[in-house]
């Protein structure tokens, strides 16, 4: 399964990448909205995990791009920080499937990925 992880904080991005690879997933990373946008326009993914606050395009804009322009139904899991409840609601309105609040338990992310993949 090929997963795109979008997160601008390097340490967090590396940690998620490490964990997912260990779980046997194929992981592509994007450190900002621009890189993510480019990747999304060229490749298809089986799952997208995205932070909301990222440079260039926000997480919300990317979700909108995937759903409205690419017309893709790829599962999207949103990573948010405390205090971003309104953005999470907006993410769901735009078509996100699930969310996790940082800091999160890595194993829980794996469970949610597997759950989304089964649908």
């Amino acid at each position, binding site marked *: 399964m090929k997963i795109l992880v979008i997160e601008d904080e390097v340490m967090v991005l590396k940690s998620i990448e490490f*964990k997912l690879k*260990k779980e046997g997933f194929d992981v592509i990373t994007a450190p900002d909205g621009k890189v993510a946008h480019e990747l999304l326009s060229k490749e298809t993914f089986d799952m997208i995990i995205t932070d909301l606050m990222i440079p260039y395009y926000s997480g919300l804009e990317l979700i909108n791009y995937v759903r409205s322009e690419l017309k893709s139904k790829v599962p999207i899991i949103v990573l948010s*920080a*405390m205090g971003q409840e309104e953005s999470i609601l907006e993410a769901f309105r735009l078509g996100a499937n699930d969310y996790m609040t940082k800091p999160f338990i890595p194993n829980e992310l794996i469970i949610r990925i597997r759950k989304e993949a089964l649908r």
Partner: protein
Amino acid sequence: MDEVAYVLITDDKGSITYVNDKYCKLTNCTREELTGQEICIFKSGYYTGEFIENLYKEIEKGNISKNVFKYKTKDGSVLWLDTTILPLSDENKRPERFFTVMFDITNPINNIELKEEYRTELSHEIRTPLHGLLSMVDLLSETGLNHEQNDYISYIKETSTHLEHLINDLLLAIKIDSDEFQFESVPLNINHLVVSLVELSNLQKSIKDIHYLFRIDQNIPPALLGDPIYLRQILVNLLDNALKGTEKGTVLIQVKSVEVTSDKQTVEFQVSATDSSISIDKQKEIHERLTFAHEKSTRLFGESGMSMIIVKKLIVLQKGTFSYEIIDGTGYVFTFRIPYKKDTKINEFTQPPTVSTGQQLTKYKILIAEDDKINQLIYKKQMLKFNFDYKLAEDGFKTLELLQQESFDLILLDMQMPGMNGDEVLQKIRNELPEPTRHIPVICVSATIQPEIINTLMETGADAYLTKPYKENELIEIIEKTLSNVSLVKEANQPNQSTAVNLDPLNQFAHGDVDFILEILEYFRSNTPIELESMQQNFKTNNAELSGQLHKYRSQVSLLGLDKLTRLTLTLETALNETNSFEPFQNDFKNLLVLSQEAIVDVARLIIKFKTEHTL
């Protein structure tokens, strides 16, 4: 002069009698309109009547007045005018006319502000690629190079590290010189700061055979008000210099409280370096270098004169004083004093670290100098109870002998012993024993309560004084206190180092993969100083940007289990999002910087630990 300056002449009443064309243009009036008027700058509204009166008083005495005045033109632009008023006297030496020349220096003043903006940008722009360079060299050196290539790489490393230091020094020097540079007055825990610094230097000193010691006066309160960042800078520069100049020997930092008033506390810091391996030739060379240092007054040991200029500036700007002294051609002592304000309320984040009784202390080895058999028995019982390692010496000679044979962490020294008195023993320890033993912490024990005697002992070099009879917990307390304030820091192998970093959260991702943990720690160590610097620049100027940076930073510190720092970051982040002011958060922000510095030290220590364990 008419071309470049505004020129006018006024009579003894201050009314204009002559103006040049340039001045007419400035005020947008004709010569006729201006005649009989007052000089425009005095009507600008920027200056009080009192100020102008004083100025008149001066020039009426016949003195030349030189000032820079602010002036707003009719179209609203602000000018800065470098103004000279020259009184022209009559035959009775009474000024009858005043000749005024004004130069427009507005642009240079605006340029200063530009320079500041430029500096901020420059600092970031230079450091980022340099950091990239250093990281790449690190990576490259681990790719299996041949012998020759390794030599070249280590040369590149050395040179670029040197370059990095120079750039940091240069940027700092520019910063100190800038108009807006000022010191913070926030709670400052000197004990904490010095300890963390010595630990860091211990990690850096690598292969050299240097004993690192520090000694902190117990009378320094845990919280004074001052600038932790720049105190740190001063000490780092001095330690760097000491390390560069010493191959084998001792570097000692001593911190003493010197003058205390009701609201101020002056603290004296002493950094001394002695090199025991110095040959006679080398002594000569060092002596020449130090003489040169006196002449130029910028160079001490070390290569970078810049870092000493910075040290001196930082001390003097904080109303401090400094001096230095050569010891027998083998080393030197640099002493400086800074007056700090006393802090009336102690903040959560500046509480001193407490040493817990019991477990932590088990590793210490104590030498007990006591002749009385009964007292010896009591000591034995107490040492066993608190799980200290100990040895007994029944007189002064035995004490000195044991000190030269074994290494101890502390001495409990009885003052009344046969043969050689305690104060004599103390004097011999401090003056005659080899380094580093001569700096061992000493607690004097005696039945005397005469203040003069106690004072003399403290001056001779005792670290604490215990009066007999004492209660058991008093003994333990004074041992703990002395050990935590005056600590012989051995090589970076002190067990049970309590560390603020908790790797559990990261390990949930890493599952014990040391390489991965190391990668993340290395990233944090090398990247965080740059991020903090950038945050510091945004503080006060760009709350929105800073809040974003804090947001990212919070993910990092929470990944390293730095709970206090995570909480503080969240508080600041939320606060800055909700308001445009920064004043109320000044202390919190400073605390964030201090805690972060400590976290970097912790992380550096963990990296070393992992690297050594990993290769075993």
